[in-house]
């Protein structure tokens, strides 16, 4: 790890001023990903601007019945919040499925959104990686890619986004708020992450120097009946190999509204809109659920060693939606 400067910001304007448009400076939140990547030599910031103590640690109801989550709210506080647990249970479940109790106490909502892929080529500076060193190549395509993307990837990068929280946020139409020296801005979470294309090193649509200040969840009555399920190679404390966030509003056996997002299958949390279209207005039965999964996964382009993910996601979608439909019928 190379030497770096450290400053602590106490308010948002101060944080932006301290960053001072320095492309080599980084905001430090919980540090659970950034400090690790600095030790690995993947991140080599000149300065850290500590934003953990910014007054962005509240979860508050919005006027229209949604929730506004501050960027420095810890993952633990997000998952423990009664409003989140009551109105967006899949979000609480997603957060609780991630990392460990220790890491959730440290990690912030803003940092969670900005965490980098855990692709083993990206985190190992002795290996090539287009995301870390643009143009150096992607060894995963010909090499180890059992846990890589099946949707939306390119030949330049097949890494997946590691966040569980963001999958639920994507399902619930969350909007990311940020501040820049030039003023505030907003990005829907589904547009927050850039397509991979030929530029895997460009990960988000955040302007240079912007600071995430919060995430807004619009009101979503459908989310009251929601679930997050995560499959991994160890029962806990492991990244997903596939996950689903789903919400269902079923009346008289017909799906009136559905929300569906996939994790660990793409470079971003994957909102499954094609599947949602199949579900909406159709009978809430296993046949429809499978057809919905197939509609979404028709675009899948698996590699030789991750084709199982297509089956996994199809099975997960059917299992989770079936469970929700049964719950709705109770």
């Amino acid at each position, binding site marked *: *790890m190379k*030497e*770096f*400067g*450290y400053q*602590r910001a106490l308010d948002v304007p101060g944080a932006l001023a301290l960053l001072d448009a320095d492309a080599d400076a980084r905001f*430090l939140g*919980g*540090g*659970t990903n950034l*400090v*690790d990547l600095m*030790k*690995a030599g993947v991140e080599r910031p000149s300065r*850290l601007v*500590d934003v*953990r103590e910014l007054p962005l640690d509240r979860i508050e109801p919005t006027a229209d019945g949604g929730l506004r989550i501050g960027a420095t709210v810890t993952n*633990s*506080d997000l*998952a*423990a*919040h*009664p409003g989140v*647990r*009551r109105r967006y*249970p899949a979000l*609480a*479940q997603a957060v*609780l*499925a991630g*990392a*460990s*109790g*220790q*890491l959730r*106490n*440290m990690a912030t909502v803003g940092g969670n959104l900005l965490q980098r892929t855990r692709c083993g080529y990206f985190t190992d500076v002795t290996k090539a990686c287009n995301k870390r060193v643009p143009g150096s190549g992607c060894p995963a395509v010909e090499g180890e890619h059992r846990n890589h993307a099946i949707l939306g990837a390119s030949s330049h990068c097949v890494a997946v986004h590691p966040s569980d929280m963001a999958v639920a946020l994507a399902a619930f139409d969350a909007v990311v708020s940020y501040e820049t020296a030039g003023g505030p801005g907003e990005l829907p979470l589904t547009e927050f992450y850039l397509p991979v294309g030929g530029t895997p090193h460009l990960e988000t649509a955040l302007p240079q120097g912007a600071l995430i200040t919060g995430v807004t969840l619009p009101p979503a009555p459908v989310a009251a009946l929601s679930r997050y399920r995560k499959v991994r190679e160890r*029962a*806990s*404390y492991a990244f997903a190999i596939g996950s689903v966030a789903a919400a269902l509003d079923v009346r008289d056996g017909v799906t009136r509204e559905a929300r569906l997002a996939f994790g660990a299958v793409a470079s971003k949390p994957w909102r499954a809109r094609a599947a949602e279209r199949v579900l909406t207005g159709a009978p809430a039965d296993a046949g429809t659920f499978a057809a919905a999964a197939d509609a979404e996964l028709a675009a899948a382009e698996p590699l030789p060693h991750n084709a199982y993910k297509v089956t996994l996601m199809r099975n997960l979608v059917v299992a989770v939606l079936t469970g929700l439909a049964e719950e709705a019928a109770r």
Partner: protein
Amino acid sequence: MAPPPSSAFDSSITLNINGDKHTLTVDHRTTLLDALRERLDLTGSKKGCDQGQCGACTVLLDGRRAVSCLQLAVAAEGRAITTVEGLSDEGQLHPVQQAFLDLDGYQCGYCTPGQICSAVAVIEEHAAGWPSAVTEDVRPEAGPPPLSAEEIRERMSGNLCRCSAYVSIVQAVARAAATVQAEPATAAPAGAEEAAA
């Protein structure tokens, strides 16, 4: 006495550890774990992976468990730090420590301080009503889940034990939780009141 910062890459800080104030100058790269172990001779917190992947370095920050290997020391200034050395009181073991000792909740002992700090926090998090990934119904109306072996296992999963003393660790946490619950209510983790409101 700590020398003054010599460059933009050092800072003079005061750390509040186990109720004592320690002033020292740290290289910004120094993690809280390295500051504890290499600067302050508090070697109870262990370095198992240095990457937040094993939990051996778990300490309490403002009453909440955290991995000290990913916590920069300079960023820990102003926070109340509790390490395993701060859990026992005048030689009187914390109920979690006593249960680990009595039920053989360890083998080599290297992950033990982290397991113990984590367990102390698990019991408090549970008492504060926090759900976990194995809690069937996370809605607040469902009420807190009982601290079953399954709940303990999930909540303790951030602490690896390669000797695999998991069976007796879980027994020790369960016994300690019962002991703690029998005692006067302990403080909930900082911020829990707000979250539970």
